[in-house]
């Protein structure tokens, strides 16, 4: 997963909506663990479009 750190507002919303509980937020830093199955939900829901996936268009 790619986080555009200039866009992300650290709201934690993606963390709470990830069906694999694979996202972690501490302060301003988002990390993803290997449970991510690339479902794309976080990318779609981020209010400001701060997330994208490697290899996706």
């Amino acid at each position, binding site marked *: 997963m790619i986080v555009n750190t200039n866009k992300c507002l650290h*709201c*934690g919303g993606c963390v*709470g909506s990830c069906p694999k509980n694979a996202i*972690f937020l501490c302060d301003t830093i988002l990390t993803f663990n290997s449970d991510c199955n690339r479902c794309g939900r976080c990318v779609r829901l981020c*209010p400001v479009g701060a997330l994208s996936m490697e290899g996706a268009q």
Partner: protein
Amino acid sequence: MNPLRCEVLVVGAGPAGGMAAKSCAEKGIDTILIEKKPEIGAPLRCAEGVSKKMFKEIGVEPKPEWIRADMKGAVIRSPDGTSFQLDESKAGAEVGYVLERHLFDKGISKLAAEAGARIYLRTWMTGPIKENGKIVGAHCVSMGEPLDIYCDCIVGADGVESQVGRWCGIDTNLKLGDIEPCIQYRMAGCECSMDFCEFILGRSVAPGGYLWIFPKGDGVANVGIGIGGTFAKDGVRPKQFLDKFIAEDPRFRKAQILEIDAGFDSTCPGLEDGYSTDNVLLVGDSARLIDPLTGGGIGHACVSGMYAGEVLAECKKKGDYSAEALKAYDRKIRDRMEDGLYRDWMAKEKLAELDDETINELVKIMSTADIEHVNVQNLLIAIKDKYPKLVEGFEDLI
């Protein structure tokens, strides 16, 4: 760091965690409250509207510094500009305050501290400690150092992130349609009413959600939007709708942004499999207790925190924090909240299907109906008479 030990560990110091810690500590429970951020109540993820009657229910006297503005009523507006105004005389205690959340949240945690809870900031729970399959505490990172906290019961109060429950076996996963991504600007120089909260509905304005203007006095307002998760995708993001609205509404032609806040609301009818398990219970947003129609969660957060303390005091007496003992908490939540959550979830689902024209009609119906005491229940009754399709499937809850 040396491990800590307590009876109840509350994870997250928002209103739900603060109230839970206060309520536990007041009942003589040895309580620790942890918060991963360096400051309680900031950054903001909220429009800060709360009903006045909430304070009565939780037995807390609101401090003047918590309240930024006292609302005279609310206005519901449809895309064609039709509006319906509810005044305090008709809406009674449903009308509320616009808070200063960073002071309110700190104020509730202050009450917890005064009651004897120990508070650790910058302390992040990263997972449960299990012994023979039983949850006996939490692995944390405190100021960058690993810290284990042992306890009899964990209260998950970690807000929308809702990870504590999922780590501990409580299913808090949401359907896409029950997630509402939001964005809000705190704006100065607004020429909108400073006495009325405004809610603007309609698919062209906020698909699957609504847009709000919550005034804070002196030309300042929280102007924000939430849209339904099923509508959200690249090119359809809350920010675009909010920017369009602000650019087109003359009341904001001079307004400037002081603060940008984002956040997600859950809009589900509560948790199907319950709010607790052995040695763990969930309060507030982590238990997905936000009202799915209004997006309001502060009230339920505080009330559920209070219930947690009441039930855990009984558990302490009996030395029993099992799932069976904690069912008393689930019962309290179900009795107090679940009918309302379900009714409002159904209403939200139906509203999300309607086009702008129908919303215009609905707001007209509301504005011409003679409603003595305005609340969600009575509004739905008025709509039920003239537009029964909206309440199909949950008439019995109205």
